[in-house]
């Protein structure tokens, strides 16, 4: 079974140093469209979507539709992640009317890593840090104007989720 290494406890130190802005890329996942995700104020965690395996199944569960590739999404992730426990990923988009962003790691045990709701007035830009079990394609999905768009990038993981 795949495992994830423990992330080093760098977060607090980074904040204390006020150094968060530098060096941290973000992960972006776009999720939107399905009943669970339609209401921006819904508090429910989309449990089923987080159990899915595969991009198509995950998007179908989360949004009820498929995504088309777009060049208006910026997916920022390292080419090579030395530590699969902490992979910085950022997603931003120049698409209008973005309502959700989600991030998928296709080779993880469960494809969906994180999903974000972007209400009106919030910029379509998210940075976060994800665990990756092994080298994988990372997919950013952006819901904009009721449609789904995606961008992807291959991230090589040198020290995988199992710490060798």
């Amino acid at each position, binding site marked *: 079974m795949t495992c994830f290494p423990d992330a080093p406890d*760098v977060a607090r130190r980074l904040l204390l140093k006020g150094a968060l802005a530098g060096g941290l890329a973000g992960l972006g996942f776009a999720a939107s469209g399905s009943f669970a995700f339609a209401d921006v104020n819904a508090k429910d965690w989309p449990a089923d979507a987080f159990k899915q395996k595969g991009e198509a199944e995950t998007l179908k569960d989360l949004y009820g539709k498929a995504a088309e590739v777009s060049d208006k999404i910026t997916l920022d992730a390292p080419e090579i992640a030395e530590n699969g426990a*902490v992979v910085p990923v950022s997603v931003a988009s120049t698409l209008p009317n973005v309502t959700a962003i989600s991030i998928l790691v296709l080779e993880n045990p*469960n494809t969906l890593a994180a999903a974000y709701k972007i209400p009106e007035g919030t910029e379509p830009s998210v940075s976060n840090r994800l665990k990756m079990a092994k080298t994988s394609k990372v997919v950013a999905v952006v819901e904009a104007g009721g449609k789904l768009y995606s961008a992807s990038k291959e991230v090589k993981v040198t020290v995988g989720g199992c710490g060798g």
Partner: protein
Amino acid sequence: MASTIRVRAVASGDSTEVQSLIQHPMDSGFVKDSKGELIPAHHIEVVTFEHGGKVVFTAYWGPAVSKDPYVKFKFKGGKKGDDLKVSWVDNKGASDSMVAKIQ
């Protein structure tokens, strides 16, 4: 007890950049302990950020989000001195919240 949440929200022009760190193990459910037994999944599910009574950002996290999760986003309308409320709940029903001032 100290809050599990650290937030830095800085207003610049008409937009506010929010960075937050939450202390949480984010156990994936796939890792074994020293006795070879699986550590059950224990992760934050939902984080909400509220400003002026309105939710400005919601994060839905699975077990693949790194330990002590970090997230950054920007929203419009925040002013220096405004309150920003951050709340999270995990898959075991634990939760925490705090109110930070926008700088």
